């Protein structure tokens, strides 16, 4: 919805998929917005494969990440974590730690971040300290002159625990009489990247919910009626594991508390959200909190707020009067820095003989540890056309680290179930899986993606399940992705032109690795007729105009229109200055290929010559993201993709190898197709790793994680990397001045499901639990043989 107080104009947009049939729509847009951007084929910088502008800095080690920051007099911080999964702390003795060599400050944590809290505080257990509800929960922190001194001192903090009964298994936690994680109903706020659950949900024991419906509204239709009308009903039970966040750079900050304000270097997905949280916790005006993220070593949804580490480091810095670096070690990262919740889904789908769906019902119990937000219903609610959809989902509390948003919260889990059941429906109806999806999915982009992918992968040569003779069986499977256009309106950019002809863009937005730095340069360069490398991009600093947090695949969609708007406004300023010389009105000044010229031809000058006309050293414009252009209705755009996977399954060892992935995706207007491909590669690899290897393993007897490292917590490596072929389609909707969308999340949503469908095609056996380890594959094959022998 546009701001009614601002002048508007009407513009016509060609919408649809490039190369397909396009239609025209008319939207009313703010008058200050730039003209409609033509399709990529007609542009010279946007839509062109552009290597990362900061690639050289990164591969040579010159890029400064938070972990690299060194300030004069900087101390090193270390977190003291709980060694038991559930306890009330009787006392904490920090005297020995305080006296240890090199120690400058010890701080005992008062306000635990990122976990659910008992809603009615009077019902919480009485204690002088936060109740310990998971092993690894931060309790205190130490700052010392060297990392070693801090580590040694951290061991000297004496904590006297009154150990309480614990539960770490989600099935056990649901049983009557299970130890209670919280003594009364608990709530947790979500983060900028999604995740978290609804508040005020009824809770019985450790089970919170089930909640009917999802983040996009209540259940729809009458599922009872739908199942009655169905010719076939397929029900499946699926389980997915807890996956921990493993960015190369762990969570961490360098906090520098000074009398005139706080400066924090943070490995964060949201400079602005770290600023807001620290301002709130420390009672500072936002203008006195500066957060800087020059380069960022990866984040998948768990790096939004200040985090416990940010709050602890700031307290330590305040106490010690010196900057404090606090990067989590890998163990603490696994234990306490967020994870993807598990799921235990029972999914029923009803369909008519012609394939049309009549009802979908999902019952899901997932655990987000001591957090909430284990919902996995998004795909069931939003992927297919179905008149009746009911999702019922519950969070099961266990004594383990809290979940956080994780690359498409709930969706890889939900897809793992949904896309297998859809394949089962297709098999029952004797319809090709792609043909069934054509029937039940009216989304034009998805239809195009299915067709393009099928051609590329050779779908028509797909064999019947289990048709290979030898022990190693090959298979081909498919699954779809769904995600949504989320827009962060707090997205602003300033673009400056300097008298020497140099151009810079400033914004608080951070590049978490997705490549927004390069995309922003492309957008500004396109508008000013320059090359992307001509633009200096200064981002990742709250001293600049406010940027969006990078989560929910919002970044490119949110910030590139602000960049183009600002570039357009400053371009018009420059045009006005040179219009007289060019002998045309400002509106008729064109900037392209480094030249500034009259639209009608004739006089021309270089961009540098034009900049010499500046009357002051620089001119500048600030612009903000406008609401999505629309016909006045609420915008609910879906993104997605279709992934085809070829696997080899060794039926004698149970080892699955992914050989090839064809990933066909849409993301609105691709700004940098090379960057989009890179995001798809990452999404596919993370999806394979989730499907086959990753698993947080908690010891059933002690409640402690036995694999909090990168050796025993298994992540895909080079030899598990398949051939990945990516096809990106251009889907135009005219939603903003760039019409860009998002790709980070949809790229990882369908991979695990596609692998499972491929394994079925290879072996004739369905894998209903991930990770699909050799042990599980062998068990599933053995069970199927037994079943086969009986029937």
């Amino acid at each position: 919805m546009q701001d009614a107080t601002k002048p508007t104009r009407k513009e016509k947009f060609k919408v649809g998929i490039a190369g397909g049939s396009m239609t025209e729509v008319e939207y009313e847009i703010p008058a200050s917005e730039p003209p409609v951007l033509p399709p990529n084929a007609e542009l010279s910088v946007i839509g062109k494969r552009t290597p990362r502008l900061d690639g050289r800095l990164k591969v040579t080690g010159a890029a400064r990440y938070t972990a690299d920051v060194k300030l004069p007099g900087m101390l090193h911080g270390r977190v003291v974590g709980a060694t038991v999964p559930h306890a009330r702390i009787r006392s904490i003795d920090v005297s020995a730690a305080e006296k240890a060599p090199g120690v400058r400050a010890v701080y005992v944590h008062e306000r635990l971040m990122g976990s659910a809290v008992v809603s009615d505080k009077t019902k919480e257990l009485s204690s002088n300290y936060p109740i310990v509800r998971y092993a690894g929960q931060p309790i205190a922190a130490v700052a010392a002159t060297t990392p070693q001194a801090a580590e040694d001192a951290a061991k000297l903090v004496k904590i006297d625990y009154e150990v309480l009964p614990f539960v770490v298994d989600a099935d056990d936690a649901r049983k009557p009489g299970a130890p209670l994680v919280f003594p009364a109903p608990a709530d947790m706020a979500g983060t900028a990247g999604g995740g978290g659950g609804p508040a005020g949900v009824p809770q019985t024991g450790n089970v919170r919910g089930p909640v009917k419906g999802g983040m996009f509204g209540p259940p729809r239709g009458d599922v009872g009626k739908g199942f009655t009308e169905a010719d076939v009903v397929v029900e499946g039970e699926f389980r997915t594991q807890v996956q921990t966040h493993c960015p190369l750079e762990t969570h961490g900050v360098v906090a520098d508390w000074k009398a005139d304000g706080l400066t924090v270097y943070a490995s964060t997905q949201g400079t602005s959200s770290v600023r807001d949280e620290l301002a709130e916790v420390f009672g500072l005006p936002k203008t006195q909190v500066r957060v800087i993220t020059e380069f960022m070593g990866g984040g998948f949804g768990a790096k939004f707020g200040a985090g416990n580490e940010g709050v602890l480091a700031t307290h330590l810095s305040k106490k010690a009067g010196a900057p404090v670096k606090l990067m989590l070690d890998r163990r603490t990262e696994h234990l306490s820095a967020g994870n993807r919740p598990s799921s235990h889904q029972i999914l029923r789908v009803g369909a008519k003989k012609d394939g049309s769906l009549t009802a979908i019902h999902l019952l899901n119990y997932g655990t987000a540890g001591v957090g909430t937000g284990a919902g996995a219903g998004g795909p069931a609610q939003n992927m297919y056309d179905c008149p009746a959809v009911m999702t019922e989902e519950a969070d099961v509390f266990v004594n383990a680290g809290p979940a956080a948003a994780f690359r498409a919260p709930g969706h890889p889990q939900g897809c793992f179930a949904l896309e297998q059941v859809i394949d089962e429906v297709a098999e029952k109806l004797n319809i090709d899986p792609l043909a069934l999806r054509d029937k039940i999915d009216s989304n034009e982009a998805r239809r195009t993606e299915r067709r393009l992918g099928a051609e590329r992968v050779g779908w028509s040569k797909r064999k019947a399940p289990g048709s290979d003779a030898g022990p190693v069986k090959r298979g081909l499977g498919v699954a779809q992705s769904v995600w949504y256009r989320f827009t962060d309106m707090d997205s602003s950019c300033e673009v400056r032109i300097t008298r020497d002809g140099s151009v810079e863009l400033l914004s608080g937005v951070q590049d978490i690795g997705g490549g927004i730095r390069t995309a922003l340069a492309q957008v500004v360069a396109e508008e000013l007729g320059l090359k992307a490398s001509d633009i200096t991009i200064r981002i990742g600093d709250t001293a600049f105009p406010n940027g969006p947090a990078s989560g929910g695949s919002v970044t490119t969609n949110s910030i590139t229109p602000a960049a183009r708007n600002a570039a357009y406004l400053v371009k018009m300023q420059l045009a006005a200055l040179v219009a007289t010389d060019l002998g045309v009105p400002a509106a008729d000044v064109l900037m392209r290929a480094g030249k500034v010229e009259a639209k009608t031809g004739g006089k021309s000058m270089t961009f540098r010559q034009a900049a010499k006309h500046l009357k002051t050293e620089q001119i500048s414009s600030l612009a903000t993201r406008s609401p999505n252009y629309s016909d006045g209705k609420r915008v609910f755009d879906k993104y997605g993709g279709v992934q085809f996977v070829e696997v080899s399954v060794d039926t004698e060892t149970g080892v699955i190898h992914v050989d090839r992935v064809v990933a066909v995706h849409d993301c609105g207007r691709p700004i940098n197709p090379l960057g989009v491909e890179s995001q798809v590669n990452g999404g596919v690899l993370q999806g394979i790793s989730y499907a086959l290897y990753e698993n947080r393993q908690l010891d059933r007897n002690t409640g402690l994680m036995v694999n909090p490292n990168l050796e025993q917590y298994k992540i895909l490596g080079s030899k598990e990397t398949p051939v990945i072929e990516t096809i990106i389609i251009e889907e135009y909707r005219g939603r903003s001045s760039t019409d860009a969308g998002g790709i980070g999340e949809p790229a990882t949503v369908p991979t695990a499901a596609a692998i499972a469908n491929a394994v079925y095609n290879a072996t004739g056996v369905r894998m209903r639990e991930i990770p699909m380890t050799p042990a599980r594959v062998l068990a599933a094959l053995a069970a199927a043989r037994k079943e086969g022998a009986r029937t």
Partner: protein
Amino acid sequence: MNAFEWVNATTVDEALGQMGSTSLLKAGGVDVLDRLKEGLDAPKRLVNIRNIKGLDRIEGDTATGLRIGPLVTLAQLDVHPVVRQSFTALADAAGHAATPQIRNMATAGGNLLQRPRCWYFRSRDFHCLKKGGETCFAQKGENQYHAIFRNDVCAIVHPSALGTALVALGGSLELTGPRGKRVVRAEEFFTLPAVAVDRENSLGADEIVTLIVVPPLVSGSRSAYTKLGEKESFDWPIAEVAVVVERSGVNVSRASIVLGAAAPVPYRAVAAEKVLVGKPLDDASARTAAKAALEGATPLSGNGYKTTLFETVIRRTLLEAGGAK
């Protein structure tokens, strides 16, 4: 990691002189660094033996056997022409361990002497039997990667890929101590938890491994090695097999079948070896032998799948040694 003193030893005698209950020897430093970081070891002194001259050579040939210095790296073993050609199991064991970066640093001696990777042993959180505690947490805990043989006391699996190959090849170790040298067969070098739960071998506290000896192969015999992991990059095996097969005519005259990732020591499947003798090596005999190898297995709650895996890996490795590939 605790603070420690660093000493460079340039000869075996110097190294012996620096040893003691608070010293730790460091060659490639791969496993030692892991242990120091987790706090499993807290030595006062680290004795760097990496620079001792003469311990980093591979000598010998097919006819005389191999004499391998303990400071030879896994990467060297992997590509050495004689090792690769005639002692294939050893080259493959070295070449499939860890990652290329680690193989460039890790030494043969270190590989044999590395401590187990059991996640309870490796975590500072668990004071397990092996570390002087009362409990083997794996027995009733998370034991999918643990031993299926000889696991009654402590269920670690021996982590050394070279150890598995070396036992199969009938190799031995030269140990040097203050009273001189002694030679121990690899099979006897590795010891079970029942002998001493806090260690995995019979190396004396004052001894250094100074040579690894591999006897010559009987003419016509072949070796093979297979590592099977949940993944190939940077992972430990869930099943590992090294075999040596000698033949007279078409029939097997002697076989050596050793399982890694199966027991607290490289585990010799004696029953399987006997099954093969006097038979041609083919799919049927390999199958029978593989089955025999798993007799007496005592899997724990979570690692029964390993018996299925081993049957396959033993059969495939035997057939590979038989030239089937």
